[in-house]
């Protein structure tokens, strides 16, 4: 999906839908299956495996304690999939355009700049991890628990240095408050179709959510 506005909007609606009901999660997953590159987008982020393991553990604990763990697990995993797709589809620079389109040259530019620099930091962090891994291989240092702690400390230090360098560079390049930018977006037909297709997902989710609130919720029945 090329248009970041539709992508962000769709992701927000799909995440909400998946969160509020299991039917919404199923519909959101169906949307994900139809309109995204699916497995390719998952492969792009290494963090997804770690996150899935964590969710599985929490779901299991919830299932044992109050029986709603499986529903929670499915809904959260769909939200993670949507998030991974969103991150995988990121095109450098687009948050700056989105920010200015949403809130103008000052606040919008600043928010977009923050988002861009945040993404840049995440990418740099992964680059640093790769470099540290290569350095450990070259030095024949095992990357076990004794090696991971100094590597982690080093990563934090590198991030602090990067933050200082970025601040200097921003100042020397003349950044004070906001900036001039003509926002531009590419919108394909598929973007519009995919964007409109989140509406049924939303309706399915809210319908079941409302149904749950009025007819199934013991809590509400008690109140009424």
């Amino acid at each position, binding site marked *: 999906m090329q248009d970041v506005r539709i992508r962000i909007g769709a992701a927000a609606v799909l995440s909400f839908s998946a969160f509020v009901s299991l039917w919404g999660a199923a519909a959101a997953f169906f949307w994900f299956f139809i309109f995204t590159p699916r497995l390719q987008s998952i492969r792009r982020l290494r963090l997804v495996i770690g996150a899935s393991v964590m969710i599985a553990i929490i779901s299991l604990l919830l299932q044992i304690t109050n029986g709603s763990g499986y529903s929670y697990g499915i809904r959260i995993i769909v939200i993670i999939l949507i998030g991974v797709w969103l991150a995988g589809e990121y095109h450098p620079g687009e948050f700056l355009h989105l920010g200015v389109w949403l809130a103008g040259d000052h606040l919008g530019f600043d928010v977009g700049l923050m988002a861009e620099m945040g993404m840049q930091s995440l990418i740099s962090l992964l680059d640093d991890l790769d470099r540290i891994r290569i350095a450990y291989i*070259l*030095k024949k240092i095992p990357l076990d628990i004794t090696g991971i702690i*100094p590597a982690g400390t080093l990563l934090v230090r590198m991030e602090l240095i990067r933050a200082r360098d970025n601040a200097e560079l921003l100042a020397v390049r003349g950044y004070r408050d906001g900036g001039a930018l003509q926002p531009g977006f590419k919108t394909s037909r598929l973007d519009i179709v995919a964007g409109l297709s989140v509406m049924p997902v939303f309706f399915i989710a809210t319908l079941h959510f409302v149904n749950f609130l009025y007819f199934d919720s013991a809590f509400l029945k008690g109140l009424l």
Partner: protein
Amino acid sequence: MRVSLDRIRITRGNFSLTADGTFDKGVHLVSGAVGSGKSTLALCIAGMLPPERGTIQRSGIGSTMLSLQFPEHHVTGMTAAEECTSWGCEPDTILALCGLNGHNKTSPLALSRGELKRLHLACVLNNPHDLFLLDEPFSSLDCEEKYAFCTLIAHHTSNITIIFTHEQSVLPKFDRIWEIENGILHDRGTPPEALKTWNSPPPLIKKLIAAGKSPRNISQKDILEAACRT
């Protein structure tokens, strides 16, 4: 002892590099313009980046050491002393060798780029290896250190040392010159013949050749000797 590149091809996005040739014992220069793929080739020969096609044969190579272009990419220690230890070196000896006495507790990332490069090269060259791959070893060194490095490299005769650089003025003697041009690694041969087929030699060597005073090799001594030739 040799490294053979058998029609390897490395691709990264729109960039691709093909290389074919054999690196025997001695000091090799791999030159090339900015972005020509010198660092990528160094990573590939070191085994850190698998070629898309072709094979790399390493015969008689027990140990390999790659020195990356940016010394900060090698840092794993929190202090200069820890950094030396991480390379298996004795900190006080190395720090004294590179004029960083008293910097034991300084973070390597707080050293100037030149100081960090000096420390890095001292650690890298402290241990013997069969294959040394040195990516831009001259960058950030001052003139005095560049000459000292050339002297050190002149003693590297019992292994394969491949220097990937675009350094223009201070260089050691080389046994073989290679050049990356238009995505292909070319073997220019051994000096002095190699200087005739080398398309982008340092400007001073180019001027000497144009003046009919082709040097025997590309070290400062060779250049001075050629310039004084009548």
